[in-house]
C-alpha cells in the first residue's frame, strides 16, 4: 500500500518537473517531420520563426530559418555573411548554389538579380520539396534545382565547360560533412567552373580541428582568400576567386554602392567589410598543415575534436 502511494507521488512529482522543463520557453511546434533517404527533416515554428532542422537533438543543425510574416528578411548571420561575396563580384549573372537548405539564398538572390540564372544543387529530393512547401522556395525560367550529389554536378558541369560568376558551397551542416566536397581535387574541379571574375564562397567551420586542414587546402588551390567571420557564431565564410582579391579601396567603393540594395534584406554590408580578413595578412594555421585530398579526407573525424 505504502509502496503504491509512493509510486503515484513520485509519478506526479516527476511529471510536474518534466512539464516545467519543457514548457519553460515558448515551445517550438513541429509543423512537419519526415525521414528522407539521408536524414530526418523537421520544420519547426516558434514565435513566428520557422526553421528547417536536419536532426532533433543538436542545436547546431538549424539549416535555414524564415520569419513567417516577413519571409524576405534574412535571419541567419551566415546567410547575411555570404553577401560579402558581392564585394568580390558585384554583378553575378550565373549563380550556382550547392546545398539548398530552405532555399532562402535562391529566393533572395532572385530578388536582387532578377535576370541572373540560379542553379540549385541538392542531393536530397525531400529537402527540395520541404523548401517549396514551407519556405516559399520557388523555381521559374531563371531558377532551377537539380537533384544530384554536388561532386557529380561539378564534375559534369566542368566537362560541359560551364562557367559561373558566383558559386556558393553550402552543403555542410553541423552534424555531417560530405567529405568528398572538401578535398583539393574537388576544389580544383570547382575552380574550373569559375568565370574570369567569378567568386566562390563556402560556408564552413571556424572552431574544430578541421579549420586548419580546410584553410590549408583552399590556400593550396586558390592562393590567398578572405575569411569572413564574426564572433557570434561558429561559421565562417571563405571567399575566393581566380583573380587577385580586391583591395580595401575597391571593397569600400563596392560596399557603398551595394549598401541600399542589401539593407532591404537586413544585411549591413559595411559591417561585413570589417569582418573580412585576408589570409595574405593573417594566416592563422600552421604552415605544414596536411591537405585534404581524395586520398585523405577524414573531415568528420577531424570535426569531432572541437
Amino acid at each position, binding site marked *: 500500500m505504502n509502496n503504491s502511494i509512493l509510486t503515484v507521488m513520485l509519478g506526479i512529482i516527476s511529471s510536474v518537473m518534466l512539464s516545467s522543463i519543457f514548457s519553460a520557453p515558448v515551445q517550438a511546434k513541429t509543423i512537419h517531420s519526415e525521414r528522407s533517404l539521408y536524414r530526418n527533416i523537421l520544420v519547426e515554428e516558434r514565435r513566428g520563426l520557422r526553421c528547417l532542422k536536419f536532426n532533433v537533438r543538436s542545436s547546431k543543425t538549424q539549416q535555414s530559418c524564415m520569419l513567417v510574416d516577413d519571409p524576405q528578411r534574412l535571419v541567419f548571420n551566415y546567410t547575411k555573411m555570404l553577401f560579402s561575396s558581392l564585394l568580390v563580384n558585384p554583378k553575378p549573372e550565373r549563380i550556382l548554389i550547392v546545398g539548398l537548405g530552405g532555399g532562402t539564398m535562391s529566393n533572395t538572390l532572385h530578388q536582387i538579380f532578377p535576370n541572373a540564372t540560379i542553379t540549385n544543387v541538392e542531393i536530397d529530393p525531400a529537402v527540395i520539396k520541404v523548401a517549396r512547401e514551407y519556405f516559399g522556395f520557388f523555381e521559374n525560367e531563371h531558377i532551377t534545382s537539380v537533384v544530384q*550529389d554536388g561532386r557529380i554536378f561539378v564534375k559534369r558541369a566542368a*566537362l560541359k565547360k560551364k562557367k559561373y560568376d558566383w558559386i556558393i558551397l553550402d552543403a555542410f551542416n553541423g552534424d555531417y560533412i560530405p567529405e568528398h566536397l572538401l578535398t583539393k581535387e574537388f576544389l580544383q574541379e570547382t575552380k574550373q567552373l569559375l568565370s574570369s571574375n567569378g567568386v566562390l564562397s563556402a560556408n564552413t567551420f571556424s572552431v574544430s580541428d578541421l579549420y586548419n586542414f580546410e584553410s590549408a587546402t583552399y590556400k593550396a588551390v586558390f592562393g590567398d582568400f578572405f575569411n569572413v567571420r564574426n564572433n557570434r557564431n561558429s561559421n565562417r565564410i571563405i571567399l575566393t576567386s581566380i583573380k587577385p582579391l580586391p583591395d580595401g579601396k575597391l571593397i569600400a567603393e563596392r560596399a557603398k554602392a551595394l549598401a541600399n540594395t542589401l539593407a532591404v534584406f537586413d544585411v549591413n554590408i559595411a559591417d561585413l567589410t570589417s569582418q573580412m580578413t585576408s589570409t595574405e595578412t593573417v594566416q592563422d594555421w600552421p604552415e605544414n598543415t596536411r591537405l585534404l585530398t581524395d586520398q585523405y579526407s577524414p573531415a568528420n*573525424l577531424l570535426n569531432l575534436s572541437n
Partner: protein
Amino acid sequence: MTNKNNKIQQWQNPLIYLLAFSSGFCIMGIELLGGRILAPFFGSSVHIWGSIITVFMLSLSFGYLAGGKLSTKSASLNRYGMIFICAGITVLPVAFSSQWVMEPIFLAIEDSRYGSLVASMALFFIPTVILGMISPYSVRLLVTDKNKSGQVAGFLYFVSTLGSALGTIITSFYLVLLFEVNDIITVFSSILVALGISAMLFNRLNQKNKVNVSNEINQQGAAHE
C-alpha cells in the same frame, strides 16, 4: 625427429586460422575504402553503398562456389597460399588504376547508380571472388574428422568474421585518419601476399620434415634387417 615433425605440424591449423582472420580483415577494409574510392566520381549517396555491397556479396558468393570446387582436387597448403598471393596482386589495381578505370565509366554512364555499379564491378569483382575462395578452402584443410566438421566450420567463421569486424572498425576509425587510401590498400595487398608466401614456406618446411622422417624410418627398418 618424429617429435620435431609434430611440432611443426601442430602449427598448421593456427596458421590457417590466422590467414582466414587476415583475409576477413582485408575484405572489409577494402570494402569500406570502396566508398572513398568511388565518391569523387559517383558521389556518396546511398546507392553508392548499394553498388559496393552488392558487388562484394555477389563476388563472395561466386568465390565460395569456386573455392569449394577447387578444394576437391589435391587440396594443399601450397595452393591455399597461391590463392592469397593472387588476391593480393589483384587488389593492387584498386590502388593504382582506379582513376583510369573510373573515368571512362563516369563519362559513359550518366546515371550514377549504374555508373557506380559498373565501377565497383570493374574494381572489386576479381579480387573479392578470389578472397571468397579462402573460406571453403580453409574448411577443406582444417576438417579431418567428419563429426567435428560443423565445429571446425563454426570456429573458422568466428575467426574470419571477427577479422571482418576488426577490419571495418580499425580502417574507418583510425587508418583513414592516419594514411592515404592507396597506402592502406597497398598494405592490405602486401599482407595478403606475405601471408600466401608464408603458407607456402610452411608447407615446404613441413614436406621436408616428412621426407626426413620417412627416410629415418626406412633407415631404421634397413638396420633391423
